C-alpha cells in the first residue's frame, strides 16, 4: 500500500519537476498524509454510520422506529447531530483545570485512530506492518484510561471521579485477560505481527481458539465501556460519568472516541479471530467490513438485551473467570503446539480440536461456578398462596 502510493506520487512528481531536493522525504510525508487522511476519514464515516445504525437497530429491538427523518431511513441523522455539536456552546467549569480539561478528549480519540494504522484492511492493504503490532494494539488501547481519569480529575466533579475510578479498575483488570488471551494465537503463529496472524488464518481463529475468542470479546466489551460493562457512564447511576461537565465539541470528541473505539474493537476482533480480510471471491476490504459489521451488530444486540453488572461483579468476572480461562487456554494451546509442530494444514485442525475438547469445557464450568444460583429452585420456594391459609413460619414465630 505504502509503496504503491509512493510510486504513483513519484511518477506524478517526475512528470512536473525533476531533481528536487529531499524528494524522498517529501514523497514519504505526502504518502503518509494521504494514507492517514483515508484511514481517519474512513473511520469517521464509520462512526457516523455506526451511530445511525445503532439507533436504528435499537429502535428495531425495542419495537419502535428509530430516527427516520433526515435523509432516506434517517441516514443523515448522525451527520446533523455532528454539525449541531460543533456549533454548541463550549462551557468550561470554573474550578476545572483548563489545560488538562481540554487535552483529555484528544487523548481518548487519538489512540483509537492509531490502532487502525496496524490493521490490515486487505492482504496487501495496510498502513504499517510492525513486527510487534499485536502488542502495539494492547499498549495503545490502555491510553483511554488515562484520558478518562484526566477528564474526571480536571472537571472537579465527584460523580466524574467515581466514573474514572471505575474505569481504571476495569481497565487494569481486563488488560490482563485480554493480553493473555492473545498468547495462544501468538504461540500458534510464532509471530506478533497482525499481518502474519492474518496470513496464517486459513481457518478463522475463533474456531481454533474458542476460549481466547470469548475472553477477548468480553474483555474488549469492558475496555470500550459497552453493555453489560458500561459502568463508566452508567446513565442510571452516574448520569454521564466522566463527561458530565463537558459540552460542545469536546463532548463530541468523547462521543466520537467511544464509537471509534467500538469500531476499533470490532476490527481487532475480526482481524485476530474471524480471519480479517480473508475470504473467497470478494476483495479483502469487503470481507473485513462484513465481519466488522457483524461483530458490531452483536455488540448492539447485547446492548439492547442486557442490563449492566455491578462493579464488584465486573471485577470478579475478570479475576475469577476470564483470567483462569486464559491460563487454561495457554496451557492447552502450548502443549498442542509442541505436539503438532509440522507446518502442514492439518496442524490447525488438531490444535483446534485439542482446544475444543480440553479448554472449552472450562468455559462452561467457570461460568456455572460464577452463576449466582439457579433460578428454578428459587422459584419453588416462593410459591404464592391464598391469604388466610396458615403461614406458620411468620405468624407463630415472629408475631
Amino acid at each position, binding site marked *: 500500500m505504502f509503496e504503491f502510493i509512493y510510486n504513483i506520487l513519484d511518477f506524478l512528481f517526475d512528470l512536473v519537476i525533476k531533481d528536487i531536493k529531499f524528494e524522498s522525504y517529501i514523497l514519504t510525508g505526502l504518502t503518509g498524509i494521504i494514507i492517514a487522511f483515508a484511514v481517519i476519514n474512513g473511520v469517521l464515516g464509520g462512526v457516523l454510520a455506526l451511530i445511525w445504525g445503532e439507533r436504528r437497530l435499537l429502535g428495531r429491538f425495542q*419495537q419502535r422506529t428509530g430516527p427516520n427523518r433526515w435523509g432516506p431511513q434517517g441516514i443523515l441523522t448522525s451527520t446533523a447531530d455532528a454539525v449541531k455539536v460543533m456549533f454548541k456552546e463550549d462551557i468550561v467549569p470554573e474550578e476545572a483545570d483548563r489545560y488538562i480539561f481540554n487535552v483529555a478528549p484528544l487523548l481518548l480519540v487519538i489512540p483509537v485512530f492509531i490502532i487502525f494504522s496496524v490493521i490490515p484492511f486487505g492482504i496487501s492493504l495496510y498502513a504499517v506492518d510492525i513486527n510487534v503490532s499485536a502488542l502495539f494494539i494492547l499498549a495503545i488501547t490502555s491510553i483511554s484510561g488515562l484520558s478518562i481519569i484526566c477528564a474526571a480529575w480536571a472537571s472537579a466533579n465527584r*460523580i466524574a471521579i*467515581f466514573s474514572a475510578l471505575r474505569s481504571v479498575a476495569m481497565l487494569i483488570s481486563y488488560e490482563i485477560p485480554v493480553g493473555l488471551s492473545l498468547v495462544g494465537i501468538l504461540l500458534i503463529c510464532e509471530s506478533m505481527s497482525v499481518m502474519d496472524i492474518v496470513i496464517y488464518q486459513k481457518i478463522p481463529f475463533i474456531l481454533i481458539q474458542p476460549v481466547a475468542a470469548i475472553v477477548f470479546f468480553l474483555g474488549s466489551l469492558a475496555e470500550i465501556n459497552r453493555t*453489560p460493562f458500561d459502568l463508566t457512564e452508567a446513565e442510571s*447511576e452516574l448520569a454521564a460519568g466522566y463527561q458530565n461537565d463537558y459540552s460542545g465539541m469536546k463532548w463530541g470528541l468523547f462521543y466520537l472516541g467511544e464509537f471509534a473505539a467500538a469500531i476499533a474493537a470490532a476490527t481487532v476482533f475480526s482481524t485476530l479471530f474471524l480471519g480479517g480480510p480473508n475470504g473467497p471471491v470478494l476483495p479483502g476490504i469487503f470481507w473485513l467490513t462484513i465481519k466488522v459489521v457483524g461483530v458490531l451488530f452483536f455488540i448492539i444486540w447485547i446492548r439492547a438485551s442486557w*442490563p449492566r453488572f455491578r*462493579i464488584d461483579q465486573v471485577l470478579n468476572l475478570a479475576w475469577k473467570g476470564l483470567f483462569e480461562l486464559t491460563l487454561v487456554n495457554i496451557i492447552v494451546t502450548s502443549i498442542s503446539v509442541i505436539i503438532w509442530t509440522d507446518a502442514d494444514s492439518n496442524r490447525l485442525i488438531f490444535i483446534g480440536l485439542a482446544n475444543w475438547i480440553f479448554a472449552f469445557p472450562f468455559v462452561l464450568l467457570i461460568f456455572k461456578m460464577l452463576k449466582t444460583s439457579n433460578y428454578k429452585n428459587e422459584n419453588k420456594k416462593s410459591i404464592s*398462596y*391464598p*391469604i388466610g391459609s396458615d403461614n406458620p413460619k411468620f405468624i407463630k414465630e415472629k408475631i
Partner: protein
Amino acid sequence: MSIKSEPITINLGPQHPSTHGVFRMRVTFDGETIIDVEPIFGYLHRGSEKLAEERTYTQVVTLTDRMDYVSSMLNNQGYILAVEKLTNIQPEPRGVWLRMIASELQRIASHLVAIGFLIQDLGAWGTPLTYSMREREKILQMFEMLCGARITNSYMRPGGVFMDAPQQFWDSLSSFIDEFPAAVDELERLLTSNEIIFSRTKGVAILTPEQAINASITGPILRSTGVPWDLRKNDPYDYYEKVDFDIPVHDAGDNYSRYLLRVQEMRESLKIVKQCVDFIEPGPVRPHHDQVPFLIRPPKGDCYVAIEGSKGELGFYLVSDGSISPYRWHVRSSSLINLTLLREMLVGTLFGDLFVTFGGIDINMGEVDR
C-alpha cells in the same frame, strides 16, 4: 506509607436522570460502599391536601389523579370509597364492577411501569421498558374509551363511575385478557431468569418483616418480606370478597422478590378483571341525581378509608363540617412511607444498588410530595 482516605458525599438529584421525578439524596460513600443516605423530598409539593379544602367533593377527584399519576384509577377509587363512607351512599353494582375493572387494570399498568423502570435502573437500554410500555399503552387506550382521558382519568364518582363503558371497551378488554398472559411470559423470558438481573437484585436491600411492620411499610414491599397483608383480602372493600384471587407472598425481602412479586400480582389482577367481566350485569352505573346530588353535603364527622393501591396502603382521611367541601383532607401515601426505610435498605450496599433499590421500592414523586 499510608494513604489518606475519607468518605465522599455526593448530592444525587433532584435533576438526576433516574430518581423517578424530583427526589434528592445526600449519599455518603466509602469507596463504592454507601455508608449514609439522607433522602430529601418536597420538590414536587403542590399542596393538594390544602387545595381540596376549596373544592367540592366531586371536584377533589381531579386532585387525586395528580397525586400518583401512574395509578390514577386507584386513587380515584380510594377517595370515592371515603366519600361514600362519609355520606352513606349505596353504590350501584355495575358502577362498582366497572370501578374494580378499572382499578385492577390500573394496577397492572402501574406494575408494568414499576418493572420497566426497575430494569431501566439496572442499566438495560430501554428494551424491557418499551416492552412493558407497549402493554401499558393498551390499558391506557382502554381508559381513553372509558372516560376520554389516559392518565388523569377522574373516572369515578360517588356511588359509581362517571359513565358506562362503550362496546369497544369490552371488545378490547377481551382481546387484552387473551393476549396479556403471553406478553407477561415474554417479559419474564427476557428478565426473570436473566443471570445479570438475578445477580444484581438477589440478596440486595433486604428488609425483615419486623423492620417493615415497624415502619408501617405496605404493599408489594411488605409482601416480599413474607407478611401476607393485602387489604383486598384483609379488609375487603367494593366486591373483592366475591372474586377469587391469590396474594403472592415471598419471604426473601430483597429486590428480586419485589420484582417477581409484581409480575405475579399482574397475573392475579388479570384474574380479577376476568371474573369482574363475568359478574357484571346491565344497569345504572351511578345513583340518580335525586339520591346523590352533584353537590354532596356529608354530615359532620370524619372517616378513614384505605385501599390496596399499587404501591401499598393508600388511605384517605376526610373530615366534614357539613359544607360542600371537605374541612380537612389527608392522604396516607404509601410511596412516602415506603421511602422511610431507604437508609436501612441501602447502607452497606454499593453505588450500583442504590437506584436499583429505588426502582424496587417503586415510588412516585407525585404521591410522595402531593
